[in-house]
Structures are given as structure tokens and as C-alpha cells.
């Protein structure tokens, strides 16, 4: 890696010239027709570097075409100046959630952020998501999310129920479908101050997985009980509903209002409502199957082993 580097703990320094000899060599190689004369040019500062070697910003001037998005500009840099610029992307259609980064400080999908949204003379700064460990340039290690996901009890329908009877109205699943729009871009995880300001190992699953749990809990036929997990390892209590996650969600999922708050209410009912506690003691029904949820779903046979309690 030939670019100017600093230890990652240091304040990131802006390199005013693309000091990298890689970059300089590539600049010489660049073909002129790629940058039509008179085209508007945007100035970009892009984070370069790895976790081991530290990072710095490199400056690039990118010719602007109408309708261009930040990811297009990054691709132009790859094709013409810095072929090894690491960018994670797939569909370039805001459907896969791969190209997440922080653009002028805001967690964004780079494929959906148009250059036209910035003032013509504004410098556009692109950084990796800060909540996750850096791999290189704009790419971070998001594998922690996949581990958190594995801990969630999967969809658990009643066993043996004939599927021909699986009928429900569109309204019954509207909310579940809203949650299942999630493209796992992890921007909500990135912006969430619980994850961003604390160690990522803290017992908090983050907005993305609260949304997944909400989708499962609100499925008309799901019988599992995830409230204990939410309260414990899920760490739902850490969320203090600042709604930053909702604000950055590219799928416009109302994460806080529609997913997290209802889950918090259920956890509170289950754990702290004296009437429910008294009812459970009287009837001797355990937390798992005696909960409101099993009643709401109208059938005590959860198909899961009853938890002691």
C-alpha cells in the first residue's frame, strides 16, 4: 500500500494530493477521452488504507455525468486512477445493501446517493462505516452481524397443521412485509449509537436484528418465544429510541416506531406487568408457552420444549 498512512488511532489526515505513487502512475496512464473537456468535475476525498497500515484520505477529481451517483464516481476512480480501490458493491440498484458507506458523514448507500444532491463546489467525502472494523479503503468487516443473526430462534410454525389452512388477510402481514423489506445494508447498525460508541461485542443485537425478530414475532403462524432472548443477549433495553436508525434506513422501514417500541412493550408486559406475573403464578404456566403470544395465536402447542420457570 503506497498511500500516505498514519496509525489508525490518529486523527485522519487529508492528503491534498493523491500522493500514492500507484495513483500517480495510473494518472499518467489515464486515457484522455475518459474525461471530456469542459465537463463539470467534482472533488472527492476517499478513505484509503487498511486496518494494519492505517488510513488517510486521497483526493480525486471526477468528471460528472447527469444523474451520476457516488458509486459511479468510485467506479470511475477504479477504472481510471486507482484500480485497487476497495469498494463492496453488487447490484447498484439499492436492492442488495452492499455499498454502505458514510458520505459527508451520513451513513448512505453509495448507489443511491446522487452527486446532484450536493452543491456544485462541495467536496464529497466518502468513508467506511465506522462501527465495523476496517478491512481496506471503504470495506469493513461486517461478519459480526451474521453471528448475531444465528442466535435468533428461526420461524417456528405449528407442526402438522395442513398448509391449505394457512390463510391470512393482506392486512395481517403488511407489517411483517415492511420488516422483510430490509436489505441488510447495516446502515442502521452503523448509525446506532449503542453499537457505534461502545464495543461491538456489547450485548445488543442492534436495530437490524430487532427488525428481524419483530418480523418473526408478528408472523401470523409463528409459535416461538423470543422475549427472553430480546431482554438478555438481545439487549433491547439499551435502545433509547433516538430513531437514528429509522432516519438512515434506505427502505424507509419505521424501525423504531413499528418494530422496536412494540417489542419493548411486549418485553415489559412479560417481565414487569404484575397482573401477568400473578396470572402465570396462579395458572402455573411457564413464561414460554403461557405468554400472551401463545394465547394470541390461539393454540398452546408451541412445538418447543417448555422452558423451566
Amino acid at each position, binding site marked *: 500500500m503506497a498511500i500516505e498512512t498514519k496509525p489508525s488511532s490518529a486523527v485522519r489526515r487529508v492528503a491534498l494530493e493523491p500522493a500514492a505513487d500507484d495513483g500517480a502512475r495510473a494518472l499518467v496512464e489515464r486515457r484522455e477521452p475518459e474525461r471530456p473537456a469542459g465537463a463539470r468535475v467534482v472533488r472527492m476525498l476517499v478513505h484509503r488504507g487498511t486496518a494494519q497500515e492505517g488510513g488517510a484520505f486521497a483526493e480525486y477529481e471526477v468528471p460528472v455525468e447527469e444523474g451520476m451517483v457516488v458509486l459511479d464516481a468510485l467506479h470511475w476512480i477504479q477504472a481510471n486512477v486507482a484500480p485497487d*480501490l476497495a469498494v463492496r458493491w453488487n447490484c447498484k440498484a439499492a436492492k442488495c445493501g452492499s455499498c454502505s458507506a458514510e458520505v459527508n458523514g451520513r451513513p448512505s448507500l453509495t448507489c443511491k446517493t446522487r452527486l446532484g444532491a450536493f452543491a456544485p463546489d462541495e467536496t464529497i467525502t466518502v468513508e467506511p462505516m465506522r462501527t465495523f472494523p476496517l478491512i481496506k479503503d471503504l470495506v469493513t468487516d461486517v461478519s459480526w452481524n451474521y453471528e448475531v443473526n444465528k442466535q435468533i430462534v*428461526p420461524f417456528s410454525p405449528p407442526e402438522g397443521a395442513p*398448509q391449505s389452512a394457512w390463510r391470512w388477510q393482506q392486512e395481517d402481514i403488511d407489517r411483517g412485509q415492511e420488516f422483510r423489506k430490509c436489505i441488510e445494508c447495516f446502515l442502521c447498525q452503523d448509525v446506532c449509537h449503542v453499537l457505534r460508541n461502545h464495543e461491538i461485542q456489547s450485548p445488543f443485537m442492534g436495530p437490524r436484528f430487532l427488525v428481524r425478530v419483530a418480523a418473526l414475532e408478528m408472523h401470523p403462524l409463528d409459535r416461538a418465544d423470543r422475549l427472553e432472548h430480546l431482554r438478555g443477549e438481545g439487549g433491547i433495553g439499551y435502545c433509547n429510541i433516538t430513531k437514528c436508525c429509522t432516519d438512515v434506513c434506505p427502505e424507509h422501514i419505521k424501525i423504531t416506531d413499528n418494530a422496536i417500541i412494540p417489542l419493548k412493550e411486549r418485553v415489559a408486559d412479560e417481565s414487569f406487568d404484575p397482573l401477568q406475573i400473578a396470572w402465570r403464578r396462579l395458572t402455573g404456566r411457564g413464561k414460554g408457552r403461557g405468554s400472551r403470544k401463545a394465547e394470541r395465536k390461539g393454540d398452546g402447542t408451541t412445538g418447543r420444549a417448555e422452558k423451566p420457570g
Partner: protein
Amino acid sequence: MRSFLETHPHDVLVIGAGGAGLRAAIEAAEQGASVGLVCKSLLGKAHTVMAEGGVAAALANVAPDDSWETHFRDTMVGGKMLNNWRMALLHARESPERVRELERWGALFDRTRDGRILQRPFGGHTHPRLAHVGDRTGLEMIRTLQDRFVTTGQAVYMECTITRLLTSDGRVSGAMGYWRTTGQPVVFPAKAVILATGGVGRGYRVTSNSWEYSGDGHALAYEVGAELIDMEFVQFHPTGMVWPPGVRGLLVTEGVRGEGGVLKNALGERFMWKYLPEDRRHEYAENEDEARRWVEALSAGKLTDARQPPELSTRDNVSRAIYTEVREGRGSPHGGVFLDISYLPAERVKRKLPSMYDQFESLAGVDITKGPMEVGPTTHYIMGGVRVDADTAVSTQPGLYAAGEVAGGMHGANRLGGNSLSDLLVFGMRAGAAAAAFARAEAAIADADPDQLEVELVNLAAPFRRPDGESPYHLQAELQETMQSLVGIYRAAEDLEEAIRRIADLRWRWSRCRVSGDRTYNPGWDLVFELRNLLTISEAIARSALQRPESRGAHSRLDHPDADAEWGRLNSVVSRGEEGMRVTTSPVPEMPELLREIISVRAKAAA
């Protein structure tokens, strides 16, 4: 040699984690095999997430008359009878159960008024047949399959590129590649390998495909001697975005037309009536009034005797129509035509096509509930692929299986919309089951051959060692321009010969290309290997297109504008020969009389 390399042995190795790969991996795991699932991206990002309109299955929830027989007939007729009939049969019969299975695994499909899975009309399907979730069906499918696969506890290798299949004793016995994040090599010895790598769209300039679609599985199979069939049949989806330039080619779901979207040229003419093939004209509405009645009934969830609008003709036909309108000077300002759904209530458009609404609003500044979209053809899908056995998905090489877009035969000369999502479920499952059974019968996982590993290590290092050479990005841009201009919707012998010459030149220059930086997450280096695959596949497409002197389905020859009955009985076959690529033909598998009758009876009934 081997002891120095990171090695992960499995009974079954699945390459690709889109719908087909995930479904195959689930099946193999459930049958007791140890499974390794390798993907170039993060899990859940594969191209299947981009599928929008729906999954085709004759559930008969909306049209009680629908049946597997009609689905089979639609698929064969849409594929111009070049399909492998056995694949089309299995697909039509098994897809309803594969869709219901997804629901059992947690998928939430849109509902009919009586609470069942809702189905939407699509081009070439006689009845409303596509189970869907608004316009993000692929995301729902991949998330459902991903969650299901995670419960099996089997291994996933994310951001890992496979560059070579390993062989021993005349069969495929694993694969080798490298981690994209570190660049370090990795070896996967296996009893059976399933290719589920998707398509080839990145060989074209205008495409709806993501960067991952570089024909990896097609090329890996070709390199170890497996046969590819029908490679000339590349589907150009009629409706991609044409403006702004950065999103040119981005898919506009056929669901827009399925919900009633109307195509018009710059003169305001609804031109699709002009282009309906005479033998199928009777299946479409006769005039605007009938088409409107059909849309009204659809919106109200009612049955109607009105026939579907002409916009729902098959994709090959609609693409040629749009291309012709633009070429003859009746195009929109940015070189497409207009697709209009704004005459429907805004609320309905937003509910049924939410991501289209969002896509046009955020990327083009167009409100599709208020005005038309500008659309034009975009490279979307390859019907051709690895030649497989219909029942087991095994290729012509023992130990090697293929499912989903990388496999050929199912769709013939033209794929119907919605048939790929069902294809990948049906044949993903079959490939997983067959590979697991094959693995059970094998005594042990063969050790990787050190010589093969050595060769590949040298190949991986080579692009860094060249003092100078061209950038792979520039070579890819040239290849894309070549394929776009010379091997596009309309083809001619002269152009195809020129394309083959240019591809040979590009291949020579590729062998000298150079990359800078190091191995850590280096996209320039990644592109070198993807480009190698794209060059092989582009040559296969061009040579197969040159061999077929007729126009059929998605393959249109300016110098041979008509279908030729003789060629209608031949699949094209590409294989690796002693002196380069061999292109031949093989007879289309003979269909049993009973199925022939189904096709002719249904055709008459429709008339």
C-alpha cells in the same frame, strides 16, 4: 504442497449462494451431506435479490383453470420448442410445491382476498401465475432460503472467488480459489460440486446484471470439459432504465406491465399491437377497451373474459419491438420508449410496485404515479448454459452439477418472466439431492492434485508480476462495447465474425494485463479472473450465434430473418477441443407423444 494451503473438505461443495445455490445447499444438508457454500459476495447479496416480479407456479389460486399442463405448454411455446422437454415438465409439475415450501419456511407472499398466495399476470403466461411480494420477490426468496440454510449449521465461505475446478480420475473433485478480503488461496476438496453461479451479463455494456454475473460457472465447467448448450440465446429484457446515464440498463420489472403498464412511442402510439406474432394474436386483447377491462378486473381481483394487453407478449418480442421503434425514429428523448402506469390510482402503484416507485424517484427524479418512465432493452439473462441431465442436474462431467441460470436447456430459445425463480428452486433442490446421493456412494474425498494447485497459484500471482500491461478495466470496457454493438438483439454473420476476431485480440491482451496494489481486497485483481471467464463465454455466445442461421426466440439474425424448421430440432453445443473452442449441434430431445398432445390441445383451446 497441499499442506501449505488452507483446505476445507466437504461432501458437497456449492459454488454460488443465490436462490439455486441456497436451495441446493439446503437439500444436500438435509440429506445428510456435509456442505460448503461458497459465494463471491456476502451471504444474501446474490443476484436473486434483484428479481422483482415473481415466481411462476401453477398454484391456480387466482385462475382456477391453471394447471401444470398449461404452464408446461406456455414454457415450451415461449422457448420456441427448443427446451429440454423433461426439464420443462419437472419444472411445471414441481414449482407449486417449491413455492408452498417457501411459505412453510416463513416467506410472506402477497395475498388474495380469500387469504391465499396472490398471483400476478406476466408475459407469455396464459394465466396469472406469479406468486410475488410487491416488486421485491427475489429478496423475500433469498432471505427465506438464507434463514433456512443457517439453521442447518453448515459452512458458508463468504467473499471467496473460485478460479478453478479440480479433477481426479476423470471426475470433478473440488475447487480452488482465493479469499477476496486477503487474497490468500483456499482449496475445497469435495466429492461433488454444484455450480450455481448465475449468468453472464457483465459482458455487455447495458445490462441489468450485477458485477458478479461474469459467467464464472459457465467458464469453470467449460475448462474441465463439460458441454455448454444454446449459448447464443441471451435474453434482452425489454424494459431497462435508459436515463440517467449512470443507471442505464437497470431493470424495470415486467410487473409494471403485469399490473397494466402501457408502452407508447414518441408519437403517443400504443405500438405493441403491431408486433404481436400472428399465431398468438388471438391470445391478446383486440383493442384498448378490452385491455382496459382486463386491467380493471385485475385491480378489483375479479375474473374476466377480457384478454391480456399486448404489452404482455414474450420478452424477445417486446424487446425487438422497442428496438425497432427507436431505430425508426419514434423513440423517447433518451433513446427508449415510454412505459406508463400513471393512469392507475397512485396508492395502488405504490403498493404493488414500491421499489420501482422508489427507484425512479431517487435515481431519475421521475414520479411514476404522475408520468411515464423511459425504458429500453437491457441484457438480462442467458438461456444457454451447462448441459445437464433433467432429473439430477448432473453435467456431462461426473461429479459436476449445475442449477439455476448457469444450467442450460430449461428455457429453450426464450425464457418467460417468473420462470427463473421457479427454475432455481426446482433444479436447485434436485441438484442438491443428486449431489448428496452421489457423495454418499463415494468412499472418500480425494486429495487435491498438487500439480493443479501449483498451476493455479502461478495464475493467481501472474497479474502482479508483469511490469506493464493494460488495465483489466479498459479491456472489460472494450469487450462490453464489442458484445453490445456486434452480438446484441440483432445479429449478422459479418458482425459476429468481427466480434470473434476482437475477442481473440482481447484475449491476447488479457494474457498481458497488469494490476497494481496488493492482494488485499483488490477489485482490479478480481476483475482479471472474471474477465477471463467473460472472454470465454463471449466467444461461446458469438460462435454459437454465428452457427445458427435462423431467427428464433432471443436470437435474431438480420441475414436470416426467419425460423428454420431444421434448426428448430437442434440445440447448439460448445465444448473445449484440442485446438480451441468446438461448436457443434445435437438433436433436441424427442418429446413423448402425450406431451405433444398437451401442447397442441392447449394451443387449440386458447384459440
